[in-house]
């Protein structure tokens, strides 16, 4: 219905016409999410280029994670349209992989590493299809890509924070998707894990897949990503890192007081 209306009008309510974006991995128009009375994300437009690696950055409480969750339909949208590879979410889900925040689950849950990765195959396995050796092999290969094959039989409660994050990434790899959405994949992980994760993500990009990650460490944005989406409830800036990741935009997103500290941080970590 919304779609028909847009076609009739030739434009989405706000921003570019959605139809011209139909081949984009992810196009969001006018996305608003509200917890209670206060909008967490307000009328957000976002376009993710094919084969790009995009960082969603912004201060705490800016609605970064909420944006991802709303795109995936995990939290309800108040308004807005989302199209993934030109199709509504319901049709494009098999092409999306999602890595939630590590802290969002209970790691004392009774399950093994390999079983978590097998959850990435749940669409294929359905309700009752038995888990075959070929499935296990694929799960094991995904663990290999994050350097954790030897941990397959471990209880997940025995893993370090970095290892937990790698298992989550392996589960997303098992989903074999075209669009990877990651929520703070580098939060609280050790240096070796950070390198392992970025290697995997860059590998995904070189295979032509698209990566979008909520990111909190401004000092690595230039090294890790080619596009950036800066938000603070509203969209602040969007585009290639070289253009959009500017001091002026950071100041608008993080506010003047904080921005000074952040710029110092960037000078230390940047090049």
């Amino acid at each position, binding site marked *: 219905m919304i779609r028909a209306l847009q076609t009739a009008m030739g434009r989405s309510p706000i921003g570019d016409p959605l139809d011209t974006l139909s081949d984009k991995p992810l196009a969001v128009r006018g996305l608003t999410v509200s917890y209670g009375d206060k909008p967490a994300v307000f009328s957000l437009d976002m376009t993710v280029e094919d084969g790009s690696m995009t960082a969603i950055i912004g201060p705490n409480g800016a609605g970064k994670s909420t944006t991802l*969750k709303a795109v995936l339909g*995990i939290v309800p949208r108040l308004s807005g349209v989302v199209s993934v590879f030109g199709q509504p979410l319901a049709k494009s889900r098999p092409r*999306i992989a999602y890595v939630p925040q590590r802290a969002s689950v209970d790691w004392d*849950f*009774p*399950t093994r590493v390999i079983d978590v990765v097998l959850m990435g195959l749940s669409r294929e396995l359905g309700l009752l299809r038995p888990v075959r050796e070929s499935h296990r092999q694929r799960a094991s290969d995904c663990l290999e890509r994050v350097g954790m094959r030897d941990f397959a039989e471990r209880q997940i409660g025995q893993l370090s924070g970095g290892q937990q994050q790698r298992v989550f990434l392996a589960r997303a790899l098992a989903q074999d998707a075209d669009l990877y959405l990651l929520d703070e994949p580098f939060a609280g992980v050790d240096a070796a894990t950070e390198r392992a994760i970025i290697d995997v993500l860059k590998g995904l990009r070189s295979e032509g897949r698209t990566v979008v990650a909520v990111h909190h460490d401004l000092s690595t944005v230039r090294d890790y990503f080619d596009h950036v989406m800066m938000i603070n409830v509203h969209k602040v800036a969007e585009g290639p890192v070289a253009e959009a990741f500017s001091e002026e935009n950071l100041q608008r997103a993080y506010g003047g007081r904080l921005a000074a500290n952040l710029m110092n941080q960037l000078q230390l970590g940047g090049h």
Partner: protein
Amino acid sequence: MLIDAVTLQLGYNATLVAIGAALLGIAAGASGTFLFLRKRALVSDAISHATLPGVGLAFLVMTAFGGDGRHLVGLLIGASLTAAFGLWIMHGLTRHTRLAEDAAIGAVLSVFFGFGVVLLTVIQTVSVGRPAGLEDFLLGATAGMLYQDAVLIAVAGALAVLVVWALCRPMTLVAFDAGFAAAAGVNVRRVDLAMMGLVLAVTIIGLKVVGLVLIVALLIIPPVTARFWTNRSDRVVVIAGLFGGLSGFVGAAISATAPSLPTGPIIVLTAFVLFAVSMLFAPGRGVLAAWMRHRRQQRRIHLRQGLLAIAQDLPIYERYTLQLLVRAGLARADGVPTELGRRRAEKACRDESRWAVARRMHSHESAVSRYDGLLPIEDVLTRDEIREIDRQIADVGGECA
């Protein structure tokens, strides 16, 4: 007497009750596992208390239409209706207000139970129909259990187990990571609804045997007990079913040995005994095993510290350390190391130096991450790697940490 009961020699009715209770226990343990894993165990308590007004209302309706007010199936249908209504209200409270689920549980549980008690009291005072036995739904009473009651429990229990089997995968996925499940296209609300339906069904068929006050125990205790024995959710389901079945069977048998022993409480106490034994003695997660692991770790660390002190000619400050060294034949009571003690101290010192060098070498990063102060370096590095480390120690000169 007890042996007779457990071996089903107390007669027809006791046997019937024991089998019925065992089937109920299996269904409750298996379904309860997912409530437990989803961390919503207490929802079942609200569901069970919300059955009571249904029992009263069904009695009134059946009596008003001139039937027998105590017809079991009719009473259970009434119970399911008000329980489902209570569940719906609870869901609405958490969804549309800022109330947390625990507050909603408290509100629904107490209001529905209160209303139920009032209804039953009124029914008894004005003595419509023949209400004797309605209060048995509170704590369960199996003395008058009929063959068709047992069949009802058996069929419904088997259905519940079948549903658990069919929905095991999505329920596990939602319990572990609801966000991921939703993103992958699983309808989380529908899975939760199915889980609640399952619990509701088990509660209803358990009313007659265990009673509404204690059915929650049969849903929660077996999975919690099973968790002590395994780290895999699929096995928690099976073991919880077994423990639940065992509690139901043994508890019902025990209560059959004396006429005044209430079935429900005895079943719950049996389940508790299994829980207590598991908590204390289960390998891995049990209290005793954890304590022994802790003590062993403490001994090894004291020994290691003692050896490093010897290697560096430092005094040994802690009595416990010295005791351990003496007991292992590594030192004399006055703190002077024995020949064996010196050799072992030298080895400990060499290990520490090797670890210190390994920490500086990036190539050994993953091995170093496993260092815990006790792990022999030979376990994580190959001989040629250690030779290379020793060469560096010879160059720079190493020292104990």
